[in-house]
Every structure is written in C-alpha cells, then in structure tokens.
C-alpha cells in the first residue's frame, strides 16, 4: 500500500516528462538549426546559397544531392518580412517553415508560376490580406532541381534575385 502513491506519482511524472520533451523537440531542433546556420555565417533577412550537397558539405539531415538550396533565416518579432524568388525553367519551390518545423507555405518557382512574393507577419499584427501569419523565427528555403554542376551554377546565380527583407510596416 505504501508504494501505491509513489507509483502513481511515478506514472504521472512520466506522462508529464514524456509530453514535455515530445512537444518541445521540434522547436529545440529548429533552434539548433538556426544556431548552426548562424554559426556558419548565414545572417538574418538574406538568402544565402548553400554549397552543392555532398557527404562533406551536408549540414542538415537528409539533404538532397540533386537540389540547389538557398536559405534565409528571418524573425518576425522585429517586423514583417517580404520573401520572393525568381522563377526558372525547371523544378523549383520556395517554402517557409515556422519554429515548430511546420511547412506553413510553399510556392512553385517553375516557369508556369505567377508567384510574386509573400509578406510574413506576426499573428498579432494588423494583417494584410494574403499575408502569412508566423510568430517569431522562421526559415525560408529555395529548392531548385540541379543535379549537375552546370545547373547548380545557374540556380546559384538566381539567388541574388531573391528577396528576404524587412517589409514596410503599417
């Protein structure tokens, strides 16, 4: 009988510990990713082209060696951010991830796309129509199909035409 209460406390503590770790893992891992990118010199509010993905250059899990990536770290805490990228003749996408690793937005960057960019704002702000609500830190990621060095070079040259910058505040 004297062990019943400790056993119940053990089980309840286990459930609390389990749920706490489980729900915080994605944010923790995303935070580590931000730290890694920052340590590698990727500043906020600018797209940076990553090297071709090889065993020697990989920095995140399961990179695709067939794609050219460009990353932008941003934070809506200091104001809205406008994100855009040029289309091209091939497969491409621009995706946005929140601090919980959710893919909250994706746009096609193929030639048939009419994507003109997206504004990202905190949910608490006076939101414009079409703006994406995202609170705090996020990552924008451009993927372009580039299985050869030649196509990678073309994809990398387009990064300078992409935008990830502070937007005008109301």
């Amino acid at each position, binding site marked *: 009988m*004297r*062990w019943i*209460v*400790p*056993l119940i*406390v*053990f*089980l*309840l*503590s*286990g*459930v*609390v*510990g*389990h*749920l*706490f*770790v*489980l*729900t915080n*893992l*994605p944010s923790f*891992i*995303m935070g580590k*990713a931000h730290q890694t990118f920052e340590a590698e010199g990727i500043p906020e509010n600018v797209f940076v082209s990553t090297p071709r*993905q*090889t*065993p*020697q250059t*990989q920095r*995140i*899990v*399961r*990179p*695709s*060696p*067939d794609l050219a990536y460009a990353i932008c770290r941003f934070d809506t805490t200091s104001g809205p951010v406008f994100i855009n990228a040029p289309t091209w003749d091939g*497969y491409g*996408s621009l*995706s946005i*991830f929140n601090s*919980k*690793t*959710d*893919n*909250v937005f*994706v746009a*096609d960057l193929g030639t048939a796309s009419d994507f003109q960019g997206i504004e990202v704002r905190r949910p608490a702000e006076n939101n414009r129509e079409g703006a994406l609500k995202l609170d705090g830190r996020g*990552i924008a*990621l451009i993927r372009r*199909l580039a*299985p050869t060095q030649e196509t990678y070079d073309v994809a990398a040259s387009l990064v300078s035409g992409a935008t990830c910058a502070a937007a005008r505040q109301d």
Partner: protein
Amino acid sequence: MQVVIRLIVAVIFGANFGALTALWFGGMISGGPSIGKAIDIDNWQSDWSIGSESANPYVRARVARNGLLGLRKEEAVYFLKTVDDDGEPLSEACTYRVSGGVLPAAWWSITLYDSESRLPMNEDAHLSFDKTQAQQSNQGTETDWAFQVSPIAPETGTAWVSSKAGGAFDLTLRLYQPHQNLLDDPSGALPPPSIERVSCGTGAS
C-alpha cells in the same frame, strides 16, 4: 520523511523515464521508429502528415530529427525503405538491383542515407538516381529503369548509387509535385520500386 523521499524519487525517475521514452519515440535514440509508417507499400513507408501542422507530436518529432525542412504532401512526398524485397535489412555488405517504372510525380529521386540520416561519407559522387537519369538511360522515357547499389562501382556502364560507408542504410524516394491520384490512393497509384538483393559479401545470396 520517508514518504517525501519516495515521492521525490518517484518524480525524478518518472520524469526521466517519460523523457527517455519521448526521445525514443521521437527517433532521437538509435533504434527508435523512423519518420512515419502510416502508409506502407511493399515496405516503402511514408506519412502524408509530414510537414503539415496536423502532424501528431510523434511524427513531428521524428521529422524534426530525421527530415528537417521536409515539404508538405502537396509539394513533395517521401517514402523510406530499410529492407530489400525479401525483408532483409539493407546493408553496405550487399549488392542490390533497384528497378521500377513510371512514377506519379513531376520529378522523383532515390537517395541513399546512412543510419544517422546523412549522405554516406564517401567520395564516390554517386549518391542518388533520379527521373532525369532514368530518361537518359532509356531514350527519353522513364519506363523500366534500373540501377545498382553497391560499395564498389560496377564494371559495366550500369547506373550506380554507392553504398560505401553507408553501413545499415536506407533508400529515400522523393516524389516532387506528386499527382493527385497518388495523394488520394497511394497504394493504387504508386508502383513500388523493387530492391533485389543480388549478392552479399563474397557469396551470392
């Protein structure tokens, strides 16, 4: 006093046990579950909630650990396979023939990753096989494509993905801009690529 000590010990051990099980179910501890198994087509496993806000906490944690920055299903779907057609774990010690036909997506690729979800640490520069290669090897169409997975390059001109330094590896099939019929009926729309074990070590299997 003893009661208080028992309760404190119960809290400490309980919380740690709960945390460890969360790390295991979240794929943070070796041997834990992989990304998702809600969809299983001949052991090609996936979960349509990857990247989605509707993903349950377990899928969300596993994706964060093993597939960070994965796209939601409308843009890309991911299938992972860790065993060959006979159900044996994929191993660097063996040679495999991977083959298939037309896949329901705008573009696709099959990439080899080690047990830590990394590209294997080799310098062979043969890390994946994709739709473009399938078309090039088959006169512009992607029907009846095949490639070899092995730690050493094949002597013939066979398409090759290197498993050198891959250890106990997996193959990840990415389907970009998947066709709607795949999203609606995955097992009916996806002809699963075959992974045939050709030989292991010095002897044929």
